[in-house]
């Protein structure tokens, strides 16, 4: 049941990212919905779950991009894994923490995307504009994060088992 819900969440995330959020741009930029959902899962269910979800969400998104396949997958997976690992050391999370996590994961994910993209020879990640894009996207992620965290938490909530098995 949990796996089915996670797969449905994955499909919905990719569809929303490619068909809905590209109409909802802020200064020409779209948010990293897949990244925020992966981070939310890492936050609630541990770094492995977040990394696996981030990998598939990024891969699904990559099929619609011109950047190399696997680039978003790597950026999302590593960021979710990092957030999940760090979250393990935090006992209580205040309310303001969610937007901050959204913004920080946007920065980290964006920088991984730019760094690996530069090594892979992606033209679009050259120059200062790429960093401006990361900044704007991170702020957009921060705005979305509280809603996404809440939605993911409710959708995957299970009173018996809090660990997602893939």
């Amino acid at each position, binding site marked *: 049941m949990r796996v089915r819900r996670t797969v449905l969440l994955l499909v919905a995330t990719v*569809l929303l*990212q*490619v*068909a*809905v*959020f*590209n*109409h909802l741009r802020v200064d*020409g*930029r*779209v948010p990293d919905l897949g990244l925020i959902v992966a981070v939310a899962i890492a936050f609630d269910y541990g*770094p*492995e779950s977040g*990394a*696996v979800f981030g*990998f598939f969400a990024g*891969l*699904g*998104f990559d*099929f*619609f*991009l*011109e*950047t*190399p*396949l*696997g*680039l*978003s*997958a*790597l950026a999302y*997976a*590593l960021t979710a*894994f990092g957030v999940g*690992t760090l979250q393990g050391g935090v006992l209580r999370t205040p309310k303001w923490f969610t937007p901050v996590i959204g913004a920080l994961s946007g920065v980290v994910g964006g920088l991984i*995307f730019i760094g*690996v*993209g530069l090594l*892979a*020879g*992606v*033209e*679009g*990640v*050259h*120059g200062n*504009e*790429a960093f*401006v*894009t990361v900044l704007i*996207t991170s702020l957009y992620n921060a705005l979305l994060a509280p809603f996404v965290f809440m939605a993911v938490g409710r959708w995957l909530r299970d009173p018996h088992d809090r660990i997602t098995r893939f």
Partner: protein
Amino acid sequence: MARPRTNRRRFVLVLVILTSLTLITLDSRNGRSGPLGAVGRVAHTVVSPVQHATSAVANPIGDWWSGLVDSGRLKKENRKLRAEVAKLRGREDKARIAIENDNELRRFLGLDLLESADTILARVVDRNPGNFESTIVINRGQEHGIQKDMAVIAPDGVVGHVIESWHGGAKVRLLTDPESAVAVRTVEHPATGIAQGSSHSDDLTVSDFDAKAIVARGDHVITADVSNSVFPPDLEVGRVTSIKPQDAGLGLTVKIKPAVDFNELDYVEVLRWVPGEGPVVAPPTTTTTTTTVPGATTTTTTTTTTVP
């Protein structure tokens, strides 16, 4: 107890990194031509109806929102455009005569005629879903004969070229995409160079104009006649907005404002033009109808041109 969990965590991390890096390497080397490309085309075909549906809903809302926010600017723009239409009507006759003369000369010289290339009208249903590219998705694809590398134009000028097509749609790389490069020349004092796009910029940059080239602000820039270019020659690209000499007098860096407003594109035309070969004219199909009436037999042969 903690050791197996840590090992599992490391295993997942290493697996994800290695798989991602393998995919990036394979994709960078081979492109999307193999099985990965096939999966991508299937994904596009599956998502196309959803994109069409969301576009149908989102576009009117977006237009309404723009109208609400920009009503003052739209009225002003409307007045300006009316004046421009009146002025352009006066120039239309002169332009038609010039085109006829040009076509006659081209026929005489045995050059390809752009007018003889078929076009396929398509609606823009989506924009690039990512942040580091400039592409659009159109609602016509393989079923209309749209192939990779076909040039895409709008009434104002060049839009870009097709980079991928599937059943029910195609992806077009805009001139402003960082990976886009188009051979251009200025009309007033012909100088040839390569115009490239850049991330989140509406302008094109030509950085290889000769240092002695005579280029001025406002000069018209059109596609150059270069062999194997995906763009036919003489299509409007834009106008020069700035000229800057490069260090050590190596050349000129010129900025071009594209003639097409890529944010306002609703419909585009795909040119059935093959690089290096010229216009593609669809093969005629012949239909023979035999009608038998008492005392006489009539045979009608109809030759029609259809898009495969």
